[in-house]
């Protein structure tokens, strides 16, 4: 099946109820966030910082405030990655006194430990801390990312000293923003609304697909739901929302890695189930499942031991990252290859994982220091995750659409085959009748004719003196004539020989004359604009239906007038047969209705319409319409049906 735009739109429309909320809310919030952030009085002061790296615990804040460090502070040229494994980073600056600022935020990502010292002009030092290794409840400002209250000072500028520590090899990019109180509050509100919308959309997708999983009994929906849940948890963990809502007292390490690993495992399970990789390619299936399972195992070990066995130093995290990345790449590759191999259902899969992966790339490009912080980057993963959820849900709906289409096409083909088969059956029946009719006429008819002629010749040998024997011979000859007439009538009823030789109009004329010529019934026949050559199948159908109707009229109608109108209009043959007899409801017998139903069936097989109109005492009108080229509605049975 080819990818078509209508198909695509149909799928999207089917999923509209679910997707609309998610797409709209994410769109609105992504658009509104930077506007709020930029329009208000927040100030990016990242570039006013200087920094040094020192070994853990080698210097104190007091010493640095006193200027007792051996290394010289370097100025920070953004975007700069400032984290070094095994070292702590010190950053210092003097806050500008341009406007009263209430909050210092270190946005973008969560450091393990962040300590901040403010030195007031009068020499007082205030110390705050944040970061996911400190209990959330101890933070001076209850906020998911690192934020600190700036002490109010009217005397002069405030010196600020920041210590950032990381236990992992994770690269961290540093940014620092300061906020006026009112703007900070509205910023917080916006962020909460955005997270609420994001999580709400993910939940809706999960619930909707959970219902589908139950309704359709399809395990790929369960994989989907599990995967989307893991993705949401990861994003929640990365944003610090987890500390805020789930672990305010502090949490075990490496939950992100565990859920990433589990998500990768479920994603691989999903794609394998969705594309039926196990059946088509068991080697690939087991290999991918093993890699994903290893990611889960490593994540699990890291939660409990903080260190993978057999992996040197800080590289445990890297190992899990590589495994997860491998799973993501596998997801994209297998869906792309499947799509290129003609499995249309895969079209949304590759797209969805590409969306997530590109958002991850944006995020990590930032953390490695190639991009400067802005609100888009801050929410890149969430947008990517949401796109992933929506697109995967579309993929599932898309599959239903495609399977439904295929089922409908198969059903249509079956119906068409049935029609074509019935037509072939009728045509075979007509051929057989024709053969019987011709042999009746030719063999028996002629034999009797010859016999009769011989009898007459014998009798006529002596016309003047007709003996008793001659009279007997003539009588026998007359019997022969009767037999001959019977045979001819039978032959004609079986197959109207005139149809092929003289055409439909003449055949009908002759039949009407035969039927009514000796009955005293008045009949008229009008044949208008009929093409010279009609398809034999069409001619015989028109003829048979009219023949059946004429028989009914003769048997039951008690009519005194009959009219037949046939006209070709707009590629169709319209036939109307009217009689002024007793009408249907009074005269109909089982035979009549059965015969008529059969005729209606024959008309419909050729794509035509059949209608009878009758009431007691008011005569009967039978109308039927047939397309002149019924081949348009005829579908030949597909090859190989009988093989």
């Amino acid at each position: 099946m080819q990818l078509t735009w209508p198909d695509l739109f149909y799928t999207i429309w089917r999923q509209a109820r679910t997707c609309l909320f998610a797409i709209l809310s994410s769109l609105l919030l992504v658009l509104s966030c930077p506007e709020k952030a930029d329009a208000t009085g927040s100030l990016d002061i990242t570039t006013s910082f200087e920094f040094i790296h020192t070994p853990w615990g080698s210097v104190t804040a007091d010493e640095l405030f006193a200027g007792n460090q051996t290394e010289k502070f370097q100025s920070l040229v953004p975007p700069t990655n400032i984290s070094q494994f095994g070292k702590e980073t010190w950053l210092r600056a003097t806050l500008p006194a341009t406007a009263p600022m209430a909050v210092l935020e270190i946005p973008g990502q969560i450091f393990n430990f962040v300590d901040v010292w403010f030195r007031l002009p009068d020499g007082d030092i205030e110390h705050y801390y944040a970061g996911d290794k400190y209990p959330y409840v101890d933070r001076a400002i209850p906020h998911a990312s690192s934020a600190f209250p700036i002490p109010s000072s009217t005397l002069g500028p405030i010196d600020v000293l920041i210590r950032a520590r990381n236990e992992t090899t994770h690269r961290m990019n540093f940014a620092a923003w300061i906020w006026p109180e009112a703007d900070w509050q509205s910023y917080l509100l916006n962020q909460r609304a955005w997270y609420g919308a994001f999580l709400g959309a993910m939940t809706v997708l999960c619930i909707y697909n959970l219902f589908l999983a139950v309704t359709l009994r399809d395990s790929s929906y369960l994989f989907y739901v599990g995967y989307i849940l893991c993705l949401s948890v990861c994003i929640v963990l990365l944003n610090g929302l987890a500390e805020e809502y789930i672990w305010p007292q502090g949490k075990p390490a490496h939950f992100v890695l565990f859920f990433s690993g589990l998500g990768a495992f479920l994603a691989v399970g999903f794609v394998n189930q969705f594309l039926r990789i196990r059946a088509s390619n068991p080697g690939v299936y087991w290999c991918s499942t093993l890699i994903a399972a290893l990611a889960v195992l490593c994540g699990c070990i890291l939660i409990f031991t903080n260190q993978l066995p057999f992996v040197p130093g800080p590289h445990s995290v890297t190992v899990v990252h590589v495994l997860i990345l491998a799973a993501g790449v596998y997801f994209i590759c297998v869906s792309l290859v499947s799509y290129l191999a003609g499995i249309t259902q895969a079209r949304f899969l590759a797209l969805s994982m590409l969306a997530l992966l590109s958002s991850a790339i944006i995020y990590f490009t930032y953390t490695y220091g190639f991009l400067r912080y802005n609100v888009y980057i801050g929410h890149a993963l969430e947008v990517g995750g949401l796109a992933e959820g929506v697109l995967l849900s579309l993929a599932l709906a898309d599959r239903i659409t495609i399977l439904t289409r295929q089922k409908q096409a198969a059903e249509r083909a079956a119906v068409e085959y049935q029609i074509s088969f019935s037509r072939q059956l009728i045509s075979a029946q007509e051929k057989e009748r024709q053969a019987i009719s011709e042999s009746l006429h030719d063999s028996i008819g002629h034999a009797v004719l010859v016999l009769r002629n011989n009898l007459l010749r014998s009798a006529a040998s002596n016309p003047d003196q007709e003996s008793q024997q001659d009279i007997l011979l003539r009588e026998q000859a007359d019997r022969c004539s009767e037999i001959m007439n019977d045979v001819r009538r039978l032959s004609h009823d079986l197959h109207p020989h005139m149809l092929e030789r003289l055409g439909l109009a003449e055949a009908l004329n002759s039949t009407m004359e035969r039927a009514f010529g000796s009955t005293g019934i008045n009949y008229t026949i009008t044949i208008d604009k009929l093409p010279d050559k009609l398809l034999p199948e069409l001619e015989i159908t028109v003829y048979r239906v009219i023949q059946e109707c004429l028989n009914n009229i003769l048997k039951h109608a008690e009519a005194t007038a009959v009219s037949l109108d046939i006209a070709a209009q707009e590629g169709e043959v319209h036939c109307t047969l009217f009689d002024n007899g007793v009408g249907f409801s009074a005269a109909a017998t089982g035979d009549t209705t059965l015969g008529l139903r059969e005729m209606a069936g024959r008309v419909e097989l050729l794509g035509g319409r059949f209608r009878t109109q009758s009431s007691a005492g008011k005569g009967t009108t039978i109308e039927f319409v047939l397309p002149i080229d019924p081949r348009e509605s005829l579908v030949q049975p597909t090859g190989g049906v009988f093989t």
Partner: protein
Amino acid sequence: MKRDVQKLLIVDDHPIFRAGLKQTLEGIPWIEVVAEAATGDEAISQIRRFAPDMVTLDIAIPGMDGLKVLELTREETPIPSVIIVTSYDDRAYLSRAFELGARGYVIKDCAVTDLITSIEEVAKGGIFISPSLGNNKPILPNINDPDGHWLDLLTATEKKVLLHVAAFQTSKEIARALGMSPRTVQNHRAHICTKLELRGAHQLMEFAVEHCQQLQDS
């Protein structure tokens, strides 16, 4: 009466019936059965080979049917006179046969009695239809009209067409001769039939043959 010998071809798929016809014609000195044929294709090749003066032709024969053969005989030189010998007693066949240029129509049931008469009639230049087909003679008040009032009913073109009909020409041939389409000729024929209250091509031809002299005079 001294007559030229008429060379005759018998076309019928039934060997016993053919034998019967031959037997019927055996005693007549001026008829010579030159060949027989059982199918349409055979009939055409025999006509080409023997150039018969006359053909007795069945309609229901295998392959090409009698009507098709009749149509093709018009392409041959010389054109043989065709007498249809068939068991079909429908007027529709009769009409079509005369439209296609047949000169006689004999019902098989009456072949024993009618065939010789029909051959005689056709040889004389007339036409013949088995009497058992019913009253085929046109019943016209003006049929014996010596003044030829019926001529006033026809247009000049229709008279021309009628003359050609009297010369046993088919619509196609008349069309070629008069430089019009066969469809137009058929329309003219239909008009003439309506005006003179004639039914079918055979009645038209009968009428035309009978009134040929009057037509030529006018």
